[in-house]
């Protein structure tokens, strides 16, 4: 199956809204800006709108964006034969100024093979857009992947960390406040380095793990040279992938 990619238009929004999570941004980017909202549909009208992807210009410049940086600390005492590696989490705004590939979503009926091709087509189109607007974009491109959830839709990472600092439902906050909700949640989270070993085993295991539903998108990103940036989402612990825009554009 072949795909064509074009900007989302006002008429597409009702269709797309049905696939997107309730908290997703459904405004159309203004033309000529760094932002774009791209839609893949079957070539020659083979099938209708099937997957979409948002491109955002430099992020976090008006409203700060937060991630945890996942670091490593070693406690060593050769006298004790002690050598202990620990992961640490530090809240910060490290990806500020990067461009972003965000909120990919697809038609629920799309099968895996078609999805993989659609993601690839969208990613190529996103790269073209970034290249065409290079002067407006950041040096890095990131993509946040949704984190693990359990059967009830709860995030083990949030259960192990965020919940101890905000008793409310983070998804409700994001739905109500959008991007600002994440910043408000960040204001309640630990400000100093947190040792991951203080988290529950389930939360530690969920760090930087993408949801199975995002696997195809993650593979597409990895094929294009995106790599885990050692940053994770503050709510569900999903990994942030990154690449250097210019290296990506230089790839055949």
């Amino acid at each position: 199956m072949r795909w064509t990619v074009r900007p989302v238009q006002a008429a597409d929004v009702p269709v797309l809204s049905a696939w997107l999570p309730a908290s997703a941004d459904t405004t159309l980017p203004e033309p000529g800006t760094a932002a774009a909202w791209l839609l893949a549909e079957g070539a020659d009208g083979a099938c209708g709108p099937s997957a979409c992807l948002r491109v955002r210009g430099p992020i976090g410049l008006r409203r700060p964006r937060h991630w945890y940086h996942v670091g490593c600390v070693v406690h060593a005492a050769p006298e004790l034969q002690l050598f202990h590696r620990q992961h640490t989490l530090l809240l910060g705004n490290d990806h500020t100024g990067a461009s972003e590939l965000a909120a990919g979503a697809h038609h629920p009926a799309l099968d895996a093979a078609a999805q993989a091709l659609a993601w690839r087509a969208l990613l190529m189109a996103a790269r073209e857009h970034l290249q065409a607007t290079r002067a407006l974009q950041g040096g890095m491109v990131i993509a946040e992947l949704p984190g693990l959830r359990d059967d009830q839709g709860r995030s083990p990472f949030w259960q192990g960390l965020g919940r101890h600092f905000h008793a409310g439902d983070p998804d409700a906050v994001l739905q109500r406040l959008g991007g600002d909700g994440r910043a408000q949640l960040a204001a309640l989270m630990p400000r100093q380095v947190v040792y991951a070993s203080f988290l529950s085993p389930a939360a530690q295991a969920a760090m930087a793990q993408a949801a199975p539903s995002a696997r195809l998108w993650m593979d597409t990103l990895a094929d294009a040279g995106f790599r885990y940036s050692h940053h994770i989402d503050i709510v569900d612990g999903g990994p942030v992938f990154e690449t250097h825009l210019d290296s990506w554009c230089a790839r055949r």
Partner: protein
Amino acid sequence: MADAPRYLLRPAALADLTGLERLAGASAIGISSLPADREALRERIIRSQHSFADGDEPDAHYLFVLEDRQQAGALVGTAGIAARAGAGDRFYSYRNEFTVHASPALGARNRIHTLHLCHDLTGATVLTGFHIDPAHEAGPGAQLLSRGRLLFIASFPERFTDRIVSEHPGLADESGACPFWDAVGRRFFHLDYPAAERLASGQGRAFLAELLPQSPIYVPLLDEATQWALGQLHPVAERPFSILLDEGFDADTWLNVFDGGPTMEARLPMLKTARRLRSVGVLPPAPRATRGGHATHLAAGRRLQHWRATLLELDATAPAVALRDDEAALLGLSVGDSLCVAALDGPDGV
């Protein structure tokens, strides 16, 4: 005529080794407990004798013993003073700290409790290793053993600091398992608590504490049992703890980094014994009526050589006091010497 003084507090001597060994064997587990082995105890006594002779060493450590004169001077308690916490190295504590995290948009204001690894108490004078025979725990002997150290510090202030701290064992079960250690230290050492204690007494506490995380520990991330155990006192230490609380020590700010027990702190001049301290002259033997104005006092001579302390019934305001011959002999004093005294409270003190 009143009875002869029952308790005597004095510096430990090598002849006390067997008595100390017996007390150490019976003592509770805890980071400040006496070593149970004879050689280590002997070293403690020798170090203490050096400290009495020359208080300038950074690791000066004074070891006292409590005699029961009614049991022919049997050893019934011991306690110590370390002149400088950390003894020239860092002395680590966790400080309780509270920070408010707020989000107006979410209507949230959370007071977040963290434990902050600090060197705040480095160099302070430390009251150490209080152990008393359970038969004497509730009585005035415990008062003499605990507060007598404060009398000693206040009498020889040039050897100590103005800031006094005292560590008390945190919660641990019979087998030595310690919930605080299991939730914090163990994550970094993979050792159980008794093994960590052995290491700490060998390698030094600073060495071990250096391996603890440098960033604050977020208390909300600890399990509930551990949160509850923070700053909780091991039941065996209730008596020495309550005596120091009564003296005016604060117990809310610092925790022991290993077992999470409360580390008390105070400024010497604010303590009851230091505030009540006064100097009185020794008069020749004469009847001392036990009327209303009398109270039990800590009493000790003013000379470092042969320092002895006991409890005496004295007039609460008189500038001089008639000592019986047995009392004077016990304290090593003669007529014309002076005596440091500090009143204990009535019912609790006697």
